[in-house]
């Protein structure tokens, strides 16, 4: 097109939009709403995975580092490896807790004592229920937590004192709280790592290290193999129990959201289609006329396609803006934390909106087949 024709194109285009503004606004409302919801859902989809993965990480360790076990005697590793694990910047590691297990006695009754770092355990094992007070510092030498079965056995409550003996060493501790974990800890006494190491006479040793590592299952696999290579002589195992469930649940949610977006886009196309059909009816005479004047189908269709594309871009932009607000609100309600806007959502929303607009403009495209004689005669 020559420059003069191009300006004529835009002249006709502007007048066309102005003349049909009523219908176009209805179409725009439909498109913007659909785009807003789709945009919000896309954002949520991208973010939910991260948020839910984070949720899963509070369900316990997903990687365990331990010396290769052989037989029933628990082998020990050097606590110094903790530095090698958490020393170099490892943003993937959310929590790392070493454990040392000691067979001890309280009076004549044997009991297992587990020494660890409470601050790390608090991050990893969110399901532990504490009746009493949690121990905050990993260096606390005075207090212990007692599993509910052990507490029942020894008749302990928060504030009670308990004496523990292992070999010739003994220690006296105050019970800070009773824990219900639904696991082995219910029959154990949990103290800081220092206390366990002193009681066992094994300074600087640990039985195993539990890690909570962030990332998707494949990323965790990669991390595990890298760590295994960096720690020869030790076993680095992923805890498979959670991974499968996590993977499949995330996949389902993903599927559900994507399907919903598809359905919503179909519905939006419907809404736009209705307006466009009405527009097409109104314009059929003008199209017939233009054809009679020698206007080619291509030229005429360019106008309508430009109109649909403009509708798509404007609707998509408005939709995206509303979508951010919507996503924030949903995120707040569901996760208690705002959804962070993901920038790929913007071009995706525009693309989808333009796609919907072009598809919904089908009635206008069908006008291309209009036979001028019929239209002009039909008046």
């Amino acid at each position: 097109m020559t420059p003069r024709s191009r300006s004529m194109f835009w002249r006709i285009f502007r007048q066309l939009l102005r003349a049909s503004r009523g219908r176009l606004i209805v179409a725009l409302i439909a498109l913007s709403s659909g785009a807003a919801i789709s945009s919000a859902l896309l954002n949520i989809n991208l973010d939910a995975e991260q948020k839910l993965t984070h949720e899963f990480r509070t369900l316990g360790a997903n990687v365990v580092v331990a010396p290769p076990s052989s037989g029933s005697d628990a082998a020990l590793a050097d606590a110094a490896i903790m530095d090698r694990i958490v020393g170099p910047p490892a943003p993937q590691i959310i929590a790392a807790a070493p454990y040392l297990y000691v067979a001890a006695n309280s009076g004549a009754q044997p009991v297992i004592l587990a020494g660890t770092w409470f601050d790390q355990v608090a991050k990893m094992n969110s399901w532990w229920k504490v009746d009493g007070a949690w121990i905050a510092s990993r260096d606390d030498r005075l207090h212990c937590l007692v599993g509910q079965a052990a507490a029942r056995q020894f008749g302990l409550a928060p504030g009670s004192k308990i004496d523990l003996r292992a070999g010739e060493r003994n220690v006296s501790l105050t019970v800070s709280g009773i824990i219900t974990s639904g696991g082995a800890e219910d029959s154990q006494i949990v103290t800081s790592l220092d206390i366990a190491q002193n009681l066992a006479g094994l300074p600087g040793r640990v039985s195993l290290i539990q890690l909570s590592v962030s990332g998707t299952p494949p990323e965790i696999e990669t991390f595990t193999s890298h760590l295994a290579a960096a720690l020869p002589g030790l076993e680095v195992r992923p805890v498979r129990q959670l991974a499968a469930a996590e993977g499949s649940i995330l996949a389902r949610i993903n599927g559900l959201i994507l399907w919903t977006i598809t359905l919503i886009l179909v519905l939006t196309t419907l809404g736009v289609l209705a307006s466009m059909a009405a527009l097409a009816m109104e314009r059929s005479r003008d199209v017939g006329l233009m054809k009679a004047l020698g206007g080619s189908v291509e030229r005429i269709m360019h106008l309508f396609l430009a109109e649909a594309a403009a509708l798509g871009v404007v609707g998509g932009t408005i939709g995206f803006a509303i979508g951010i607000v919507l996503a924030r609100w949903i995120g707040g309600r569901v996760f208690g934390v705002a959804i962070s806007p993901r920038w790929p959502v913007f071009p995706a929303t525009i693309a989808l909106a333009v796609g919907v607009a072009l598809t919904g403009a089908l009635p206008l495209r069908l006008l291309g087949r209009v036979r001028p004689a019929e239209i002009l005669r039909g008046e």
Partner: protein
Amino acid sequence: MFLRIVSDSFMRKPRRKALTAAALALGMAVATATLEVALDVGDRLAHEFRSLGANLLVTPATDTLPLEIGGVDYRPVDAGAYLPEGDLGKLKTIFWRNNVIGFAPFLDVPVEIAAASARGNQAQGPGSRKIVRETAGETVRETLIGTWYSHTVAVPDGSKFVTGVSSTDPWWHVDGRWFSDGAEESLIGAGLAHRTGLRVGDTVTVRSGERAHTLTVTGIISTGGREDNAILAPLQVAQKLAGRPSSYRRLLVSALTKPADSFSERDPTKMTPADYDRWYCSPYISSISHQMQQELPGIEVRAIRQVAEGEGRILTRVGSLMWLVTFAALFAAALAVGATSATTVLERRSEIGLMKALGASRRAVGLFFLAEQLLLALVGGIAGYAIGLELARVLGIGIFGIAPTVRLVLFPIVLVLAAVVALLGSLVPLEHASRVDPAPILRGE
């Protein structure tokens, strides 16, 4: 007379009416499908969570304090209590029996691996495998874990229930195959296999005190837990080795539960009868545990909190997310239908003008159009519901692998929704159109 005009007008211009009804149908189909799937999402995800394995642990009520490190119980064999295997069928008779997906009893026996032979007794040669005992002549002491893989339990009501660790620990991975129920077969933990060089097809003799059994290795198991360094065998084998027929020490149960809330955590003995009924008839972990304790004497049931809590928390989050997503879809459906309604009413301005010119009052015109829209909504709603059911089936299978249960209650709901949305959608343009002066419309402007 009114009805006649409505039906006459309804029959005219069938194509445009068909288009409106189609739009309504599509909108309502989406509404139906999303509602169906949403109502089912909770159940589906609960099933997904069963891949986390057991969420209930059953132990003898009178048990001594376990001495567990890394899943291995260091108590002497005769310390502690045992439970009768014969009672287990009763688990499938409790009120929530259909929510009991599976269970597996466990009996651990410390054993010596006395001898092992390679398959087919191949001659030794350079590079051939060596089945080694621990160095320096020590015997290999390990735990033999007796359990069920796929075991048929007789239920008191006469039916049979097949269950085992396939339900309670579905993430366990076996290279080879599981042992057959009650056979002299076993699985070797991956770590143990690595240390001893045992492979599938080898035989291993295990000894506990005076008793010994020779078991064929049918598979290598890796779980990431204590099983990696143990031998797994059918429960009967463990019972014979321990000299404790028909006993088990620990039971893992996998049950479909409803996330715990403040109601479920109340003390049942302090509930009013009405509250107690409501609690009993909801599949909370607390009520299912309670029902299990009623059926099986001498047991203590505890939630495996790691699984139960996690499930509860995530299900709640995901549940709310799914409902919000559903509402988004419903809103979009309503919008689409409303827009279509609005558009078609705007189309009919000339008709409205004509009717007014013929002397119809604004109210009559309004009623007439609303009646027509209602009729369209009815037709569209019915069609939409039918299509929606099919769409729900496709979605359910596509996302969850299983179709959602058909809930007939959705039918009236969808119809009402269609009517409301169609009416609301036409109200504004109708209001606008009925005020308009008919003359210019009739002139064709």
